[in-house]
């Protein structure tokens, strides 16, 4: 207790609302416009077979925002969470698509945070329904290709390993409108063959030349589409940089590599983005891994804002 603390007070600071993404104001859909970037949490990790915890990704990022000094676009608002129904997969998928579409219809850019790879096709579908699938391409940054057709899925689980194919079915350009960046680890031959029409850049190439590789992907995709969706899965990171939902493999990107890749994509006309796959420690906000994921989230926001 210092003497200074016992002196008369001065003008009070602006109170900070409890836990929003990067301190952004809380809003609902009525207040969105073409300049808005709407961050929405996804409390959903129930439809993969991985380790649960991605459902807490959004909350943890809200918490760390309180002590983060990352700079984010002024037009960012926190729209709360999507409706999800953890034990009803079809209903959840339909709702995610519907609510993503409604956000896209306002002209705002959607940033979905949290959950795992099983939510990506639903959100892309919603965005595509609004902007038209003909002119949309997807940049997907993930350790996995997820291009195994459902029929050959050994586990029999309809929600696993087919996310890329589901996205391809949504886009007029099919797999050729999808870039898969960051794949590493053992991949089934048929999965690699299935993905051959997509733009595939393995993690090793992103590590050796992140900026150059990302630039090349950008050029290829800009030939096939004029609007883009960015899907970032935290499992692309090497184990020491991220905690994962699926059993980890060695290898992967560092946060610095990923940020360089994302920086190279800034300026592409993204209509939406997501950040999935982060399985956070639940205790103390400010843990190292969530801090790093927050940096990734801030760079994704730069991509959405078109900020250089």
């Amino acid at each position: 207790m210092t003497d200074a603390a016992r002196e008369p007070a001065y003008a009070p600071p602006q109170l900070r609302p409890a836990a929003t993404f990067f301190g952004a104001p809380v809003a609902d859909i009525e207040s969105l416009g073409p300049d808005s970037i709407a961050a929405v949490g996804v409390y959903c990790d129930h439809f993969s077979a991985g380790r649960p915890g991605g459902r807490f990704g959004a909350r943890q990022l809200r918490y760390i925002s309180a002590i983060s000094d990352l700079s984010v676009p002024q037009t960012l608002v926190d729209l709360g969470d999507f409706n999800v129904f953890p034990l009803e997969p079809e209903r959840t998928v339909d709702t995610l698509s519907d609510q993503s579409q409604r956000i896209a219809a306002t002209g705002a850019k959607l940033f979905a945070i949290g959950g795992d790879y099983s939510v990506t096709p639903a959100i892309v579908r919603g965005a595509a329904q609004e902007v038209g699938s003909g002119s949309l391409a997807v940049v997907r940054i993930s350790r996995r290709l997820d291009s195994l057709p459902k029929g050959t899925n050994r586990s029999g689980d309809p929600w696993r390993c087919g996310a890329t194919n589901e996205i391809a079915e949504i886009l007029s350009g099919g797999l050729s409108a999808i870039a898969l960046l960051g794949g590493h680890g053992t991949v089934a031959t048929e999965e690699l063959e299935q993905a051959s029409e997509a733009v595939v850049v393995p993690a090793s190439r992103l590590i050796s030349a992140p900026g150059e590789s990302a630039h090349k992907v950008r050029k290829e995709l800009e030939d096939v589409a004029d609007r883009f969706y960015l899907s970032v899965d935290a499992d692309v990171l090497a184990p020491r940089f991220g905690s994962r939902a699926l059993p980890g493999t060695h290898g992967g990107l560092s946060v610095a590599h990923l940020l360089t890749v994302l920086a190279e994509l800034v300026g592409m006309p993204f209509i939406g983005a997501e950040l999935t796959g982060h399985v956070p420690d639940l205790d103390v906000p400010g843990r190292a891994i969530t801090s790093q994921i927050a940096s990734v989230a801030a760079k994704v926001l730069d991509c959405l804002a078109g900020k250089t």
Partner: protein
Amino acid sequence: MPLRNAPLPRMAGDLTFMRSRRATLGELNAENLAILGAPIEDNIGRKSGTRFAPTALRETSVYFGWHANPQFSHPVDIDVRVPIDTSEMHERLVDIGDIPLEGMPAASAAQAIRSTIQELRQTNASAILLGGDDSIVYPAVAGATDGEPVGFVQIGGRLPGAMPGDEGARRGDCSPLTYLLADNYVALRTTAIMAGTGRTGLEFVQSFERAGGQLWSASGVSRAQPGDVERMAQVIVETAGSLHVHFDVSAFRPSLHGMSERPAFGGLTLPDLQKTLGEIGRAPVSLLIVTGLNPTLSGLSVVKTGLRLTVTALLAYIYGRLDLDAARRP
């Protein structure tokens, strides 16, 4: 049409205290009970973590957001089979957020707390200030005064080792109450300490009580008859004109949880604290300051035992403050 058209899973979405609605300071009025966080701590030792308590308490409290969840009919206290009417809670209980204190030097943080509470006082709303450690108590109470000493009740927390002006105080006694007394923000005759922790000298006890202060031991609190605490609180309000309460979670018996920043022997059970805070809540308390909860201790994941205990105890205060437990009164 709002984005969402169905309830969210319990741990999802906007984690305001008890899922209450958000509000700004400017929107408050005398009917409101406002929740405000002060995520700061003085302690830079190995057990730091009380600054996370506002967040952790909000997270835990969503379990009790009955009034904000349309799927529940109405709550009933199973022990007394009395229904609890929460119909006014949505309008009156609000979460106004946190004072942004991260990274501030201690002196600036204290000034920020003080001036925020001064502004809060202008609205006539009652408030619960979620700390942090007890370094927030002095600036909060200082901000709540209008030049005259205010009524003050301390539950748990450190016993002052000395009276203001004594040799011990000059040596650097760290209890916030010592400084509040020294600077005349509170007066001895309108101050009560209930279940204080640590040791103090006989001289202090004699001086304190001689000057009109009330000292309740933990066993005394436990043995109190229904209405005793409420009467004490009402007398302090009538004499001082206002009442401010500091509840430190060290008031709990440490065997119940491991989350107190300064665990001590003795202490109160949950029923004791529910009774005490419930009765205090029935008095017109201006500010309840909650300190000393370190959610980073003792276990993993969210909603740990100590958090649940603290929120359960706070609920008794909230229902008392909002007059929701009238059916239960003798």
